[in-house]
């Protein structure tokens, strides 16, 4: 536990000092959300219709963005060797990295999303579902993303590969998120979608650190 906190604190500090591009996520999120109305045209009728989906897609892209360098810095400067030799297990390291990634991207997206909902004129009934899906969905993105980041560490064309690997894994999350928001706007009960998102999160929590650790072990050589 001490090791976990220590690792999270270090990553947060690095993100804050600009050592990593973790903060990139939110900025990207906000910028993209600002750009879409320009691209699509400020049609009052169409924005609320597509707003929920756009917010989610952008959140997903933002998560993808900062993932590539999740382990790359530590790999390049030899820190990963030392982390492996330390008393902290690779599973804990994976979990810590995912939590730090979520804190520097997911949480901020979570906080920013109501603002964007306002920007897009989403009906007020969509606010709570949006925040709820963000809260359940973004940690899954970080956890699953860690697997991809570890798998592609040191690979040729790592970035492209990462996107290729994660896209199919992210799509189910996206489908249920968007489904929940649409459902909420249409006045339907969205408990099933939220349950499924919660299930994804639990599954990711159980499996992702293990898979990430297995992938990291291969990357150290």
């Amino acid at each position, binding site marked *: 536990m001490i090791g976990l906190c220590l*690792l999270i604190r270090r990553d947060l500090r*690095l993100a804050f*000092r600009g*050592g990593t591009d973790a903060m990139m996520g939110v900025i990207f999120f906000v910028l993209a959300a600002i750009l879409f109305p320009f691209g699509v045209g400020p049609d009052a009728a169409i924005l609320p219709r597509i707003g929920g989906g756009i917010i989610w897609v952008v959140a997903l892209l933002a998560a993808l963005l900062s993932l590539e360098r999740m382990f790359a810095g530590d790999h390049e400067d*030899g820190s990963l060797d030392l982390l*492996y*030799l330390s008393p902290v297990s690779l599973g804990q390291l994976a979990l810590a990295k995912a939590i730090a990634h979520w804190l520097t991207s997911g949480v901020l997206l979570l906080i920013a999303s109501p603002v964007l909902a306002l920007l897009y004129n989403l009906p007020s009934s969509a606010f709570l579902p949006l925040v709820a899906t963000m809260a359940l969905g973004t940690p899954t993105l970080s956890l699953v993303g860690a697997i991809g980041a570890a798998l592609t560490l040191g690979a040729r064309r790592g970035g492209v590969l990462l996107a290729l690997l994660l896209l199919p894994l992210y799509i189910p999350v996206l489908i249920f998120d968007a489904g929940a928001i649409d459902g909420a706007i249409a006045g339907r009960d969205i408990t099933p979608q939220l349950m499924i998102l919660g299930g994804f999160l639990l599954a990711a929590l159980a499996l992702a650190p293990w898979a990430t650790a297995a992938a990291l072990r291969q990357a150290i050589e």
Partner: protein
Amino acid sequence: MSIGIGNRGNVQGLTTHKLGCIRGERAVFAGLDLALNPGRAMLLSGPNGSGKSSLLRVLAGLLPAAGGRVDWEGTDVTEDRDGHRARVAYIGHADPLKPSLTAAENLAFWAKLYGFDPDIEPALFQFAIEPLADVPVRYLSAGQRRRVTLARLALGQNSQAGPTLWLLDEPATGLDPGAVSMLANTILAHLSNEGVAIISTHGGRLDALLNDHADRFDMHEFAA
């Protein structure tokens, strides 16, 4: 080379048996036997690309051996990986420092993660970098960075139950003569504490300073 081999029942320190290493489908070395008693250092020499770094990584457990085994006190280290990791202090070619953190922050992180004494002052002092403690590593010169990396050794040394097996890959790179002496003293203190150290080198001041406590090992003979 084979000091202490023979009475397998009570082997001390580190021994390897027919150790081999493959990198990128090419054998780097093969059939390598070495033995090292507590309190001794081994100076690893050999031309560029002869496999010094690879050997140190295999010994640290960072790289899987392609054949043979590494024993600590007579038992295979792969049988107790956690125990072996706790035993090893590894210094590689690169400096595992984050440029945006200060020297002190970098060191304090490793100290806490490894469960060493969180007071890093003595370690900074040992490598004469107290004045740089609060400078972000980004601004340090090449030699100053190397000193910060090496101060990690002092951290473990000043704690109880620090690592006993030091694996140092050209640790003196970029150090001025004063800093080389500091490093030599740190290593000698480790050896006098019944520690073991394997140090890759291309000759120089560090070799001379450690001469009385070190065996020499030339990788050239084992090139595959």
